[in-house]
């Protein structure tokens, strides 16, 4: 099934330019008919209160591998042409971009499902941890049961 032509994964402190990243992905997979992408953003209003910044810690070395494995798993399930994943680490202000997941395919369903799948797996398997800092002090974000449940929905019957 996998005919992935372009796979690009990056963990970085720097911000990214969504338009530019999508252009590169399209240039690498010119036969694509569909492109879907997700951007995750730092919300100003967290569950705890007004947020001043988000600090993202990660496990260098493992994060890149985890993202690649997630992309390859997606490419085994859907006929994807290209995948681009970027996850930022370090200190991010409110409204900052945290993560980009993008996929190209011939038809839209593959790209839609693969992007949702990759985000559900990224949320539960890639070693990133968020700390929220704001008028409430600072605390580590708790893992959400709903994210684990979202992942479970993708399990294939054995």
């Amino acid at each position, binding site marked *: 099934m996998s005919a992935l032509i372009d796979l690009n994964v990056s963990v970085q402190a720097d911000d990214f330019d969504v338009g530019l990243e999508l252009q590169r992905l399209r240039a690498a997979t010119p036969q694509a008919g569909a492109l879907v992408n997700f951007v995750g953003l730092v919300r100003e209003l967290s569950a705890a209160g007004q947020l001043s910044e988000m600090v993202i810690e990660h496990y260098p070395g493992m994060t890149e591998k985890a993202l690649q494995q997630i992309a390859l798993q997606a490419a085994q399930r859907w006929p994807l042409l290209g995948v681009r994943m970027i996850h930022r680490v370090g200190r991010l202000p409110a409204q900052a971009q*945290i993560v980009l997941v993008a996929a190209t395919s011939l038809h839209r369903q593959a790209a839609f499902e693969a992007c949702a799948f990759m985000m559900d797996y990224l949320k*539960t*398997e890639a*070693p990133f*941890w*968020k700390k929220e800092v704001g008028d409430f002090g600072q605390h*580590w974000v708790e893992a959400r049961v709903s994210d684990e449940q979202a992942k479970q929905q993708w399990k294939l019957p054995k």
Partner: protein
Amino acid sequence: MNITILYFARIKEVVNYSSEDVELPDGIETIVALKSWLSGRGDTWQKLFSGGGVVRAAINHELVDDMATFEDGDEVAFFPPVTGG
């Protein structure tokens, strides 16, 4: 055997350091045995690995469960459930 242990996020803050090289007594070769051995260091460690919250583990960058085994020279990591994305 000798392994390196890494700690991340809340767990790093609890144990107060991010990595250590340890020499293990014979028979400590699974994640669950390692957790139990580390718990012997005192209250902080005991509380960390018992009930007080889920501690996830990785061996050489692969997520593993409690029954997974490691070998001499491996890198073992302990961390809370991940919250990226």
